[in-house]
């Protein structure tokens, strides 16, 4: 590079940042994507989507009602998870299940109490509607859990030795209430930041191409680095704003605990924001119209962040090939950090490798942007 090479000027940079900020403030769609969409998504995922089974309608087939069977039924009824419905024959219960009036059946045969008393082992039959496999597994687990709890209590009350020599004592760490909201909401931060960083950025740069403003801009003495920085800075601030809003709502509106340090969260978010912005810029350099840029941004950044990041679907239960693929999704690393920082605390063994992956991706994408962006049209 020669000595006469035009110097970076901060007047030009400030001019670009000011222009971009004014445009953001005046464009209702940027504000909507940055602030309204996160709120809508949070409300939707916070209240609407739940991976927990709640108020599951269970059919109790009690062939011979007595004090023991009504005690069991009461134990189920007390739980938040079940709404018991009583039947006297298995046929009626099966019919109800077919009509989807109930999602599971607990079957206590006529000699149930008798066999329980004489210690010969009292079987209960459990039938679960398997149409929704996920729901079925959860329901099954809950029923067995409730059954075991009741059995333990029953033995204690009677002063009998426990039916099982070793009692299974379960404890759920980090999310003791096993609320799926606590696990979903932190992941949403990644999805929202992807939207702001990649989608919004891709759209606004493509818009400059579409409206012909880019051509006029390129012929000014602006350095390409100033142009890129002029785009990065305002959207970085906007994205971090969206992140803070989401975190604030998560903590205060949805009572998701934030066990780790806020600073760690901030630093990781900043890293992820850089990756998202760089992807957005890269897309808009390749796709020079808003429609294509929008489509590409959604398919390449938003959907993977949604599906392959571990935000909703557990990565470990994916097929191996897909698991490999998730390593290419930046949101994966960020979701891991988010869930750890929120629910477990500053677990460096998780945070550091994931942050390193994000830093590497930010570096690669920014280098690609720098290489692909030029001041010529070809």
């Amino acid at each position, binding site marked *: 590079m020669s000595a006469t090479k035009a110097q970076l*000027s901060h007047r*030009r940079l400030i*001019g*670009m940042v000011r222009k971009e900020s*004014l445009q953001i403030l*005046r464009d209702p769609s940027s504000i909507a994507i940055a602030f309204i969409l996160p709120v809508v998504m949070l409300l939707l995922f916070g209240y609407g989507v739940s991976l927990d089974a709640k108020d599951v309608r269970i059919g109790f087939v009690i062939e011979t009602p007595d004090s023991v069977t009504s005690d069991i039924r009461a134990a189920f009824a007390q739980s938040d998870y079940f709404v018991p419905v009583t039947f006297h024959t298995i046929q009626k219960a099966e019919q109800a299940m077919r009509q989807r009036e109930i999602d599971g059946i607990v079957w206590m045969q006529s000699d149930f109490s008798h066999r329980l008393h004489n210690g010969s082992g009292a079987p209960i039959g459990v039938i679960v509607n398997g149409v929704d496999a996920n729901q079925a597994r959860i329901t099954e687990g809950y029923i067995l859990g409730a059954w075991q709890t009741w059995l333990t209590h029953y033995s204690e009350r009677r002063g009998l030795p426990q039916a099982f020599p070793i009692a299974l004592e379960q404890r759920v760490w980090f999310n003791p209430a096993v609320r799926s909201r606590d696990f979903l909401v932190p992941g949403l931060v990644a999805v929202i930041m992807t939207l702001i960083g990649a989608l919004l950025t891709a759209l606004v740069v493509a818009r400059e191409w579409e409206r012909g403003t880019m051509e*006029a801009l390129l012929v000014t003495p602006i350095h390409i680095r100033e142009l890129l920085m002029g785009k990065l800075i305002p959207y970085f601030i906007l994205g971090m704003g969206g992140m803070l809003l989401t975190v604030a709502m998560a903590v205060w509106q949805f009572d998701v605990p934030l066990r780790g340090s806020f600073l760690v969260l901030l630093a990781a978010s900043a890293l992820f924001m850089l990756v998202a912005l760089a992807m957005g810029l890269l897309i808009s350099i390749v796709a020079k119209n808003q429609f294509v840029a929008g489509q590409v941004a959604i398919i390449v950044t938003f959907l993977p962040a949604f599906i392959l990041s571990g935000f909703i679907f557990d990565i470990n239960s994916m097929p191996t090939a897909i698991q490999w693929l998730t390593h290419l999704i930046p949101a994966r690393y960020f979701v891991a950090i988010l869930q750890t920082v929120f629910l477990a605390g500053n677990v460096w063994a998780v945070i550091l490798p994931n942050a390193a992956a994000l830093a590497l991706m930010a570096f690669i994408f920014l280098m690609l942007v720098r290489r692909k962006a030029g*001041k010529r*049209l070809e």
Partner: protein
Amino acid sequence: MSEATSPAIQFTGLSKSFAGARPVVALDQLTLQVGRGKVTGLIGPDGAGKTTLMRIAAGLLLPDTGDIHVLGEDMREASLQVQSRIGYMPQRFGLYEDLSVQENLDLYADLQGVPPAERDARHRELMRMTGLAPFTARLAGRLSGGMKQKLGLACTLISRPEVLLLDEPTVGVDPVSRRELWAIVYRQVKEQHMSVLLSTAYLDEAERCDDVILLHEGKLLGQQKPADFSAPMQGRVWAVHAALGKRRLQQQLDLNPAVLDALTEGRQVRVVTHDSHTPPDTLIAGLPGAHIEAVAPRFEDAFIARLQQHKLTPSTLTSTPPQSPSSDDNAVIQASELSRYFGDFIAVNKVSFDVKRGEIFGLLGANGAGKSTTFRMLCGLLPVSSGSVRVAGVDLRSAASQARARIGYMAQRFSLYGNLSVQENLNFFASAYGLSGKVKRERIRASMDDFELTPFAGSAALTLPLGFKQRLALAAALMHRPEILFLDEPTSGVDPLARREFWWHINALAESGVTVLVTTHFMDEANYCDRLVIMADGEVLAEDSPEQLRARFHKTGEEEASMEDAFIALIEQHQQREAAA
């Protein structure tokens, strides 16, 4: 070559091709210079390579081979430094429509590194020059087309560039703003010794340049003063009057093998011959009451002589007479007290006029004058707020669809299906108008022949050159043989040769009895009309024949007033009345 004596721009052996499905050689071994301190015009039909040349000069593209020096600097190496000394206005200037006039100026002042101390004075100067001073707080998107273009120019001029590159700066701009733009450009040249390279599709603008570069298919056809281009045309240009309708006269003259080009202009026909040896009397032999006189050649004559490779064969285009002649044969379109409001805004205010059968009737006006709104009401696309419209004897308020079967409509952007082939487009439009079977096949074949589209039958409409797209659009609009044809800015963005050819077909149609209603902002095209209205602020300022309008503003002792002079004079009168009121 030292910096001070080098030309503003030097192109040496410049070639540039674009790869693609159909590779294009945009520039072919071009060597030319753009001089300092003057306005150099870059003229040529579509695809001549004007925009590519501009972009190379601005450092947006690199040539494949050859060199480009701007202000003595090699653009391959020093484009960034050069870019701080040049101003470039692309075809669609990049104004940020959601920023105000002031904010746009500030942005470009920042980008061009104008020191804050100098800004206020420079802004004031530019705002005064462009007449935008009262609008500094307005969003750029809310400005009229002409004002946007002036703001674009102001942004480009903010750092007093040494070289100014303007790519078709006056396209789509009304005549008044066009004149103002030219005045600003010339002022920069005079006061700042600025060097200007300006491309244009308006041939009358070429005459305003100091020097003209004529490009065709990427090759240089010539570079000289505009007067030197037209000088060899001396003795080849004539004005003919005769006791015949002007279109009939034009067609007759065109049949003469000695004639290269015949063009209606007012009531007379302007004729360009193949050489200067043709005795004028032979041109008018056999024409009743004919009278011929030599006229001074213009740049346009030279342009046509150099570029018109083959003479247009007389258009045989006709539209069959209407199936059932309209009740009132004298007025095919009647608009009376036509008004249209959008909320509080009065877009069209009590407009009345009649159009007779077989007439070409023009609607002229600047952007926002209300001509498009009027036009849309006339073809039944927009309901009227008050007043009445009768088209082909049918009241549009009650029976719009009945009228629609008898009108053909060609929209500004041609409304073709870009990824369908020519054949498929015609097929679709024929079906849309209810044609089928043998009639449909014959009509399609006939329009392919008439418009010479047969070689392109299988090409996607999107890939056609603009002139062919226009032909296809016209063919589609004529598929059902309408008795009235509505043309909305039909020649916008089309080069002079294609425009000529288009009017060729329209003239033939009018001769066969089709009524044509056209909106245009090309003032010279107004000459093709039999009568026209000039609109401003939703009102009709004048309704007359082009000859009469021009005569009205003819000042004694001066050259004949052009249509543009008449238009500008009318608008100025109107503005004075408004100001007084």
